């Protein structure tokens, strides 16, 4: 069989039937990266997520906090709201980060009366599709609801059954071609 969807390791060696997937690596309980400690994380979570405090009020609070710690030669968890926002942006977990590039029309232009859109620059916002797709494939929430190979399903009376994307002709034709038949 070809493209059976049988689980294998990263070297292509098939796993014994019923092997559980590698569990996602659990963070250590004392791991607060990028925050330095639990105090920083909980302060950030309270200000940003729970209280949704304005940037100006965050600055005021942190200034007061700094003033109260001054005599102890200590400082608050964040210098100001910029410091807090920078830390939040450094959090490696969660959705794939957004990125942006600028593009413009590259084709021929008329000699006169160039339409404005031909000279304009446009921002395109995007997230790395490869990472998005990898996250989908790695999502344990889809366990049992994913086809790892194209399939042709027939009922008891030999009638073709179409159910999901991978049961269709297009998916089958993409994967089962002359070039892959060599591996049969």
């Amino acid at each position, binding site marked *: 069989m070809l493209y059976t969807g049988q689980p294998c390791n990263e070297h292509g060696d098939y796993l014994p039937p019923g092997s559980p997937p590698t569990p996602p690596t659990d963070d250590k309980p004392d791991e607060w990266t990028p925050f330095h400690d639990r105090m920083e994380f909980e302060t950030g979570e309270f200000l940003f997520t729970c209280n949704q405090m304005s940037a100006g009020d965050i600055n005021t609070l942190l200034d007061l906090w700094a003033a109260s710690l001054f005599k102890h030669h200590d400082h608050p968890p964040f210098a100001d709201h910029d410091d807090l926002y920078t830390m939040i942006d450094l959090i490696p977990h969660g959705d794939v980060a957004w990125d942006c590039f600028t593009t413009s029309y590259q084709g*021929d232009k008329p000699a006169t009366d160039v339409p404005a859109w031909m000279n304009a620059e446009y921002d395109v916002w995007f*997230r790395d599709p490869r990472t998005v797709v990898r996250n989908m494939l790695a999502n344990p929430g889809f366990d049992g609801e994913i086809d*790892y190979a194209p399939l042709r399903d027939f009922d008891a009376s030999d009638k073709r059954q179409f159910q999901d994307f991978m049961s269709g002709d297009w998916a089958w034709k993409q994967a089962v071609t002359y070039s892959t038949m060599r591996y049969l």
Partner: protein
Amino acid sequence: MHGSTFVPIILGSDKTTVSVATGQNEYYPLYASIGNIHNNVRRAHRNALALIGFLAIPKSKPEACYLRL
């Protein structure tokens, strides 16, 4: 073929008009999903259909469509 699987990528876009205080803005969100996920999950699970981009849409007046090259 060992150690590989087929992952069909499904893309879709649909114009979305967003009204904000300053006026109407039109966005062309680009969505992605993968064909491996069963249809019932794609409909039910928000992470099975992901927003991956906003397309740039040049604006032009109708008469500007005629290029004099």
